[in-house]
């Protein structure tokens, strides 16, 4: 019996999806979507009112035999009225935007089921700057997003050596735990790129020499697709990115595995350097 309302609801949401941006992965994307819907409603009202006026004027006042045009030069009260009216609508939209802005820009705390995170000074987030926003409790999983022609690199916390060396990384696919606030530190190593996964929120430029910040928090495990959103050269269209959200335990395991691979590679390199040293003699390279 409630199949009809459900079908209608589905039809409505599909139709609405036609007119609204992507969302569903993270609260910031969802909040942008709800802001968009309100602006859309106001925009449609204004559009149909003005187009209606234009169409009416063109049709109703079409030149006809015997008709004469009213020689009106203006109407000050009317003009003032619609000027003030337009301004009022825009002030309303501005207020609405600022009301919703916090929920879009400010990352929330991770949920109870999220990954265990270190705080500032505990080997977690290295620094907080005026532009970077942290959750209220100061803890987030901070991943550095590095744009380069034409592949995204992601660097995770957990450097095994000083100065960030030995940190686990991945290319093209970012692995993150669900229910955890992830903050992104977006940088570039060559030209300007733009990081964008539509379902996880807005896009932010990766500008060489700058850090740009955003966040997301994924509830549902899955793969979220995105791509570079600023012309960066001939391979721009192929600079895709995916974010794979997995349960926290699985993420910890993956991260540990990545660290283990790095440790193994470092050990093998040490052996190779020693062998090279013994072969070549005095001309050794200290830090290849």
């Amino acid at each position, binding site marked *: 019996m409630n199949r009809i309302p459900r079908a209608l609801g589905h039809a409505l949401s599909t139709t609405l999806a036609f007119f609204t941006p992507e969302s569903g992965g993270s609260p910031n994307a969802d909040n942008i979507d709800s802001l968009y819907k309100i602006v859309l409603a106001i925009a449609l009202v204004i559009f149909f009112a003005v187009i209606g*006026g234009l169409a009416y*004027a063109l049709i109703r006042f079409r030149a006809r035999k015997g008709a004469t045009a009213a020689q009106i030069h203006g109407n000050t009260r009317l003009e003032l009225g619609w000027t003030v009216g337009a301004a009022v609508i825009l002030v309303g939209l501005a207020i609405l935007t600022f009301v919703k802005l916090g929920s879009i820009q400010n990352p929330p705390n991770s949920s109870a089921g999220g990954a265990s995170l270190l705080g500032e000074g505990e080997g977690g987030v290295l620094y907080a700057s005026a532009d970077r926003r942290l959750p209220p409790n100061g803890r987030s999983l901070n991943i550095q997003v590095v744009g380069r022609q034409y592949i995204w690199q992601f660097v995770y916390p957990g450097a095994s050596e000083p100065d960030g060396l030995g940190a686990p990384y991945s290319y093209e696919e970012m692995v993150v735990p669900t229910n955890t606030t992830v903050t992104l530190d977006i940088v570039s190593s060559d030209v300007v790129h733009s990081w964008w996964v539509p379902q996880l929120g807005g896009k932010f430029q990766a500008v060489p020499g700058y850090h740009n910040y955003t966040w997301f928090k994924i509830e549902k495990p899955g793969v979220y697709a995105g791509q570079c959103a600023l012309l960066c050269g001939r391979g721009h269209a192929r600079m895709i990115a995916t974010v794979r959200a997995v349960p926290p335990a699985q993420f910890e395991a993956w991260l540990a595995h990545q660290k283990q691979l790095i440790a193994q590679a470092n050990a093998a390199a040490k052996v190779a350097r020693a062998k090279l040293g013994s072969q070549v003699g005095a001309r050794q390279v200290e830090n290849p």
Partner: protein
Amino acid sequence: MATAAAQQPVPQIVAHRADQRSTGEARGWTSWATTTDHKRIGIMYMVTTFVFFCLGGVEALMLRLQLGAPNNTLVTPQVYNQLFTMHGTTMVFLFVVPMMAGLANYFVPLMIGARDMAFPRLNALSYWLLLAGGIVFYSSIFWNPPEAGWVSFVPLANSVYSPGGGEDAWIYLIHLTGLSSLLGAVNFYATIANMRARGMSWARLPLFVWTILTYSVLLIFALPVIAAAVTMLLAERHFGAHFFDPATGGSPLLWQHLFWFFGHPEVYIMVLPGFGVISEILPVFARKPIFGYKAIAASTVAIAFLGFLTWAHHMFTAPIPEALLVFVMLSSYFIAVPTGVKILNWIATLWRGTVEYRTPLLFCAGAIAIFLIGGISGIFLATFPIDWQVNETYFVVAHLHFVLLGGALMPIFAAIYYWFPKITGRMMSDGLGRVSFALIFLGILTTFLIQHVIGLDGMPRRVYEYPDVGNLALYNLISTIGSFILALGVLVTIVNAARSLRVGAIAGPDPWKANTLEWLPSSPPPVNNFDVVPLVRSAEPMKDIRREVQRRSSAAVPAPGSATVPAGATQVGV
């Protein structure tokens, strides 16, 4: 011709044989190459820019063909990037801005009752600089056309990531066309400020002339910034400068700020004269005065001023301070107010009029509708959290085309149909004009409405291919089909114009029974424009002239055929 009566109506409008060119005017290609006459220069501008429009249009059709199917291989990524770079650059610098200059060149002196522009030789230089810029830019297609988009962001546009000469060709285009426009702007300002007919106060200036005045001031303030920016880029590319190189203390963001500080006023440079055309044409075909002349003039100036405060709304996704995000969102909202006021005043101009559905009016009405859609999508883009989702996607492509096609292209077509009779002495076919209008209007809607959805679905712009996910293939196909409908509409007008040059009805001086002074002399006007410049008593001098002629000729013995409209002209309306 009024010859019989002793009292002749004053001023006497005498139509000799409807000659295509007035006798005594120089003929031959050398006279065109050396001309300093604003009318000839205007014609050269209009023809040249229309050719570039067609080139830019072909580039657009090739882009749309590549995007007509997912994972398409019609062109390589390199060629695709070159095509959209050429397309955008051509349309902005080689079509819209100089076409407005061409219309202004021909009609501003006539509308203010002047003999020519203030600086006729400088005027000619402006044209030849434009042509040179276009030739230099398009010659790059034989080597390496630029690939970094019309915005040419650094570091992509520096010598490391764009090693060929294409970026340099782009820089030279900006310099040459920029100088052309800058000199033209100074010329327009000096002409309008100093050479108005007696009695033409600022409050009686035709609205198209108001918009050209504003266009000139915008150019004077904005062009030096882009000229400086591209010079810095040239220095960085070839002379070891590091303005934009973060490794040595420079900043790529500096380019974005400089470019958009010019780039945003540039879009108002493009649409304000289009608005001026609409403000001229609507009153003529509604048979009533413009509603709220002062409000429209004031809105024009307000939009120009506010336009300098909104540039960073192109940079919402860049690492800029929160305060700038907020300020620029508010200034962008603010600029919607005078723009909306204009639209409402235009509708009020039609209200209680007697609207004649001639081609110029149809293009103006269509322009308002198309621009309205673009203006409303602009509100979404000005709301920066929303912009974070839709920036650099097809949503922006849709927005920019709606505002530019509605605010500039359709008014240009309206101006062509409206002023072709004055320039050539012949009417264009109204039937073909309606067909062209319908195809262009439908083509714009089909091509660009669906692009809002494409952008909302997550497809970025400036991508040469896209995957077959969701409905992207269907939407892109619709958009491609629309682009060909639009192209067909343009073709119909080209055919119409070519045909009308030979077989169009003879127009006479005032076929539309219009309001402004360009309709006083013959079509085309003689070299000196006016034998006698009338005293201007209102913002609609032709109405005053007609009324005065009527008054004086009814006071005198009415001579046969002494009506204000000479033989051979087509009459419109009452």
